[in-house]
């Protein structure tokens, strides 16, 4: 399968700065692409467009040649957000986060080291690292074909960061899920990704 952005452009308000201009990228199922760019370059915006949270002003997002907006039901492109505490409902137990996903396999929950006891806790009762594991499990349900990871490990300690990335690399490889990841740490991207793309110079590395 292939996720493709074709000549997309985007701005949040009329007359404001163009965040993306005629930007194109292709992600194959076997790719792990790392995006490198300084802050304010529109990395998060790009992820939001590719996952269907925002519509581009110009250009289109295609999955296997078909426009993303034409897919019905579960979206094949899923996104993991930078701030897990802002992407879960504070009034529902952690179990609900997994239930929001599309039939998440128990092996995913196990593989991420989520313990049975955490399921009954509220978001305020677990740490950021534990919460991010739930958010990752949520997007690894059936039907996920592409995964976008936007600075998902900046708030984690080094060991947790390494644990989570090793799991994601193995899982996406096994299930042939294409991965696009954004991080300020080039060293991390070099370890995780098969290819790096430098937005500033529009070159591959």
């Amino acid at each position, binding site marked *: 399968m292939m996720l493709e952005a074709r000549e997309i452009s985007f701005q949040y308000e009329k007359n404001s700065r163009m965040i993306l201009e005629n930007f194109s990228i292709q992600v194959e199922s076997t790719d792990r692409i790392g995006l490198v760019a300084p*802050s304010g370059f529109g990395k998060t915006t790009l992820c939001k467009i590719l996952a269907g949270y925002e519509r581009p002003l110009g250009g289109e997002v295609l999955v296997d040649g078909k426009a993303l907006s034409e897919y019905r039901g579960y979206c094949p492109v899923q996104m993991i957000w930078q701030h897990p505490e802002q992407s879960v409902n504070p009034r529902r137990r952690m179990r609900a986060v997994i239930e929001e996903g599309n039939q998440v396999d128990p092996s995913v929950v196990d593989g991420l080291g989520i313990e049975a006891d955490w399921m009954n806790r509220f978001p305020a009762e677990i740490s950021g690292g534990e919460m991010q594991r739930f958010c990752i499990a949520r997007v690894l349900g059936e039907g996920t074909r592409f995964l976008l990871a936007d600075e998902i490990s900046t708030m984690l300690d080094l060991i*947790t960061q390494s644990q989570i*990335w090793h799991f994601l690399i193995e899982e996406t490889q096994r299930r042939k899920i294409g991965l696009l990841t954004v991080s300020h740490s080039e*060293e991390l991207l070099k370890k995780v990704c098969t290819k790096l793309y430098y937005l500033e110079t529009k070159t591959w590395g």
Partner: protein
Amino acid sequence: MEKNTSPVLEIRHMNISFLQYEKGFRQVELPVISDLNLTIEEGEMVAVVGSSGSGKSLLAHGVMGILPYNASMGGEMIYRGQPLTRKRIQKLRGNEIVMVPQSTSYLDPLMKVGQQICKGSRDEEKKKKLNQIFHRFSLEEKVQQQYPFELSGGMTRRIMISTALIENPRLVIADEPTPGLHLKMAKRAMEHFRQLADMGAGVLVITHDLELALETADKVVVFYAGHTIEEANASDFKEVSLLRHPYTRALWKAIPQNGFESIPGIQPYVKEMPKGCPFAPRCEKRTAECEGEIPYRKVRDGYVRCLYDA
């Protein structure tokens, strides 16, 4: 600043626990920090590094005397040779002892940021200093006339750091001052704390970002599940064999450039704390003795809380 040979801050055997209601009126005491020891000398920058949920923020709140009502604290704190009592900290905080809080909600939402940083003072000197700080942080001058809700996350962060830089503090405690800042800005912020230290203040930076801490700090104190498990010189992190505790070594090996290795398991939750060494369940070298009392002992110009490694 007059010469003072005693350390700026010395913390001996600090412990902090919370009283929490379980079912109905049954209360449990949760020990979040146990036997914490820390010394900050004049001109020294000490980084406390630990993962989220390890209790690092409480350390800052404990020193500043702003723990919530259901917390209790034990142990000794000595500030410049004298015990840091409740009365004394109330007098010193905000001028001699300043804190940069972690949560961005600590700013007054109804006060313009410029006034807030200067605490309402109209002193020309202070205004000049503020303009310099803003310039160094690439903040426009007009931001001084704005309210906190008008700022982005990264700007708020820089404003909070400015509140500490405007004073002439002797002790600075920064609690996770850099998240939300991109790498260049985070490094610049750390350099400012470094400058404060070079000018003679004692600086304590609490962070989860070991790599960033190593670039500027003199000493690194590693925190795990509420225990200080190692105190090392920043230079010890150049080579894994110089580190003392198995957890610190695992942290080192998890840095992408150093192999990106991981170890299984998670930091124990306060309610399920193992006896003795908190790291024992994840440690390859654990023995039956690890369930007993583990002393914090001096090894090679640093400290470690482990029976075996050194």
